[in-house]
C-alpha cells in the first residue's frame, strides 16, 4: 500500500494552497481531486481540447497557482474519488480508499487536509424537479466552461453574488433574461453597518460593478425581496411564477407574475460538502451564516479528529480568498505536526495569515447575513412536491414520517428513504432539516444531519469487493 505523510482531498484554492505550503516545508503530499483538472469550482479550467486566450486577472491568478503546483513534488491524482476513510495500518494513521484511473486503491496517510468545497443549496418549490430547472453553479459551468446556454428565455431566483454573476454571464452569452429574483430585500439599508468589512475588497467590487453594468445596459429586471415560487410545464419547464416575499419570506399571492421561460436558474447560496467530516465523525457546530453544520476546528484548522484538518468552503462558506488563507495555515500546521517545521517558524508564517483571515471572516459574515434565504421560502413546497429526488419522496411522505414521531433527519431517512439514493442526501439534506424543524417546532440544530457511510458516491461493485478482499487479507 502507498504510504504518504499527508493527503489533501480536493484541489480547489484551499486544497492546492495547503498542499503547496506543506510540500515546500518538505512534507510528502498526495493531492486528490474528482475533476479532470485541478482548480475546483472557483478556478475551474476549460477542458483540455478547448483553447482560449483568457487574459483576465482571475485566469492569471489560477495559472500562477497551477504553475506552482506543477513545479512542486506533489503527486496529483485527478479524476479520483476518495470513497472512504478508514483506520490506517499504523496507530494514528488513516487509510483512504480511492477510485480513479491511475490512482492506487488505497493510501495510508499520517494526516489529511479536507478541502472538499461546497455545492448549491436547494430549496424545493412546485416544479423544481422539472428538467430545465438548474442551479446557479450549473449555469456558470455551462456558460463559462462549456459555452452552451441552458435555455433561451431564463429567469433566475436565489440570493447573493453567485446569482448576480450567473445573470450577467447569461445575458452576455445571449440568453434573454426575463427577470432576476433576489430573495433579500432592503440590501442597501441592511448593508450599511457592514461597510467597514467591504473596505479593501476592491477586486470584488470591481467585478460586481462589471456585472451591474451588463445587467443595467440590457435592462434586466432585478427584483429585490422576490423569488420564483413555482415552475410549470409537462415534461420540462415552460413557465415560472415569481412573487414578492413578505418579511418572513412567504410569497404575497397578489404579487404573483407568471412568465413563459424554458429555463429557471436557482442559487440560494452554498452548502459545505462535509461528507468526509461526517464520515469521520468529526464534531460539527451549527453556524447558519456559514452554511449550516460545519466542522469544529482549532486555530490550526484541525478538526476534533486528530490529524484531520478542514479548510475552505467545506469548513464553512467563506469564498476563495479565505480558502487560500486557511489552506496556508493548515499546510503549515500539518508540516509542524509531521516534524518538518518548528512551531516558532510556523508562527512567523501564520501570524500574518491570521490577520488576513479575520478580514475575510468579516466579509464572509457580511455575505452570510445579507444573503441567506429567508425561512419562509422553505414553505413553498406543496404536499406532492418532490423533496428527495433520488428516491422520489414527496413532502406528504415526510410529513407522515414526522407524524410517526421522526425527530431527526436520520429518523426521516429511516422511515421514508430520503437521502438513501444516488446523491446520498446531498441535495435534500438541508431541505428535510428545514421541513422537519418547521413542522415539529424543533431547531435546525436539534434535527441534525444525515449520517454518512462509505462509499461516498455510487461505485462499481467490484471496486468495493476488491477493497474488502485486500483489507481482510492478513
Amino acid at each position, binding site marked *: 500500500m502507498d504510504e504518504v505523510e499527508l493527503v489533501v482531498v480536493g484541489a480547489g484554492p484551499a486544497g492546492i494552497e495547503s498542499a503547496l505550503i506543506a510540500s515546500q516545508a518538505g512534507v510528502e503530499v498526495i493531492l486528490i481531486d474528482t475533476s479532470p483538472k485541478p482548480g475546483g469550482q472557483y478556478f475551474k479550467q476549460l477542458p483540455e481540447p478547448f483553447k482560449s486566450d483568457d487574459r483576465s486577472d482571475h485566469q492569471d491568478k489560477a495559472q500562477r497557482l497551477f504553475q506552482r503546483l506543477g513545479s512542486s513534488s506533489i503527486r496529483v491524482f485527478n479524476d479520483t474519488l476518495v470513497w472512504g476513510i478508514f483506520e490506517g495500518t499504523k496507530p494514528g494513521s488513516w487509510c483512504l480508499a480511492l477510485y480513479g484511473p491511475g490512482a492506487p486503491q488505497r493510501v495510508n496517510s499520517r494526516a489529511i487536509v479536507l478541502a472538499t468545497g461546497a455545492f448549491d443549496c436547494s430549496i424545493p418549490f412546485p416544479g423544481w424537479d422539472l428538467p430545465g430547472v*438548474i442551479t446557479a453553479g450549473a*449555469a456558470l459551468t455551462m456558460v463559462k466552461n462549456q459555452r*452552451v446556454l441552458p435555455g433561451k428565455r431564463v429567469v433566475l431566483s436565489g440570493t447573493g453574488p453567485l446569482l448576480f454573476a450567473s445573470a450577467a454571464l447569461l445575458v*452576455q452569452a445571449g440568453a434573454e433574461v426575463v427577470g432576476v429574483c433576489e430573495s433579500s430585500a432592503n440590501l442597501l439599508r441592511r448593508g450599511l453597518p457592514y461597510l467597514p468589512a467591504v473596505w479593501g475588497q476592491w477586486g470584488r467590487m470591481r467585478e460586481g460593478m462589471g456585472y451591474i453594468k451588463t445587467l443595467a445596459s440590457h435592462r434586466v429586471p432585478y427584483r429585490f425581496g422576490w423569488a420564483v415560487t413555482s415552475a410549470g410545464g409537462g415534461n*420540462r419547464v415552460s413557465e415560472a411564477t415569481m412573487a414578492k416575499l413578505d418579511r418572513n419570506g412567504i410569497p404575497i399571492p397578489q404579487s404573483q407574475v407568471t412568465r413563459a421561460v424554458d429555463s429557471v436558474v436557482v442559487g440560494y447560496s452554498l452548502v459545505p460538502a462535509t461528507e468526509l467530516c461526517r464520515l469521520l465523525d468529526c464534531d460539527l457546530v451549527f453556524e447558519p451564516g456559514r452554511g449550516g453544520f460545519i466542522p469544529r476546528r482549532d486555530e490550526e484548522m484541525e478538526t476534533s479528529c486528530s490529524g484531520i484538518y478542514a479548510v475552505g468552503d467545506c469548513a464553512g462558506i467563506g469564498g476563495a480568498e479565505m480558502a487560500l488563507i486557511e489552506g496556508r495555515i493548515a499546510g503549515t500546521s500539518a508540516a509542524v505536526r509531521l516534524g518538518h517545521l518548528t512551531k516558532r517558524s510556523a508562527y512567523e508564517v501564520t501570524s500574518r495569515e491570521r490577520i488576513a483571515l479575520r478580514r475575510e471572516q468579516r466579509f464572509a459574515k457580511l455575505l452570510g447575513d445579507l444573503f441567506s434565504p429567508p425561512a419562509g421560502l422553505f414553505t413553498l413546497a406543496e404536499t406532492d412536491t418532490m423533496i428527495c*429526488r*433520488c428516491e422520489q419522496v414527496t413532502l406528504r411522505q415526510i410529513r407522515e414520517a414526522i407524524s410517526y414521531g421522526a425527530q431527526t433527519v436520520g429518523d426521516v431517512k429511516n422511515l421514508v428513504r430520503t437521502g438513501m*439514493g444516488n446523491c446520498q442526501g446531498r441535495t435534500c439534506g438541508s431541505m428535510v432539516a428545514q421541513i422537519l424543524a418547521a413542522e415539529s417546532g424543533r431547531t435546525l440544530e436539534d434535527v441534525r444531519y444525515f449520517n454518512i457511510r462509505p462509499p461516498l458516491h455510487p461505485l462499481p461493485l467490484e471496486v468495493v469487493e476488491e477493497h474488502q478482499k485486500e483489507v481482510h487479507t492478513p
Partner: protein
Amino acid sequence: MRITKSTSDLPALRRGKTIEVTIDGRKVQAFEGELVSTVLLAEGISIFGRKHTTGRPSGIYCGMGVCYECLVTINGTTNIRACQTFAVDRMVIETAGQVKP
C-alpha cells in the same frame, strides 16, 4: 444552444476537433471537450432520464456531479452522469426521454 459570441467575461474560444456521437440512434456532430450534457443541451434535449419509481422526467440540475439527476446510458453502461463525462468520437448515448413510463 452553443454560445458563439465572445465578450469581456467570455473570451474568444476555440472548441476541440469535430467528433460524431450517436444520441438515441441519431448521429450528431459535437466537439472534443464537450460534456455529454452539453451535447444533449445543444441538440435541444433536456429530458435525460426517467425516475425508476415514478417515471418522472429528469435532466441536468447541479452540473457538478452531486445530484445524479442527469444519468444516461453510454456505450451500453447505464447510470452515467452526463455532466461529468466528456463526449468522445463514436460514443453511443441513450436517454430515456422518449420512453413512456
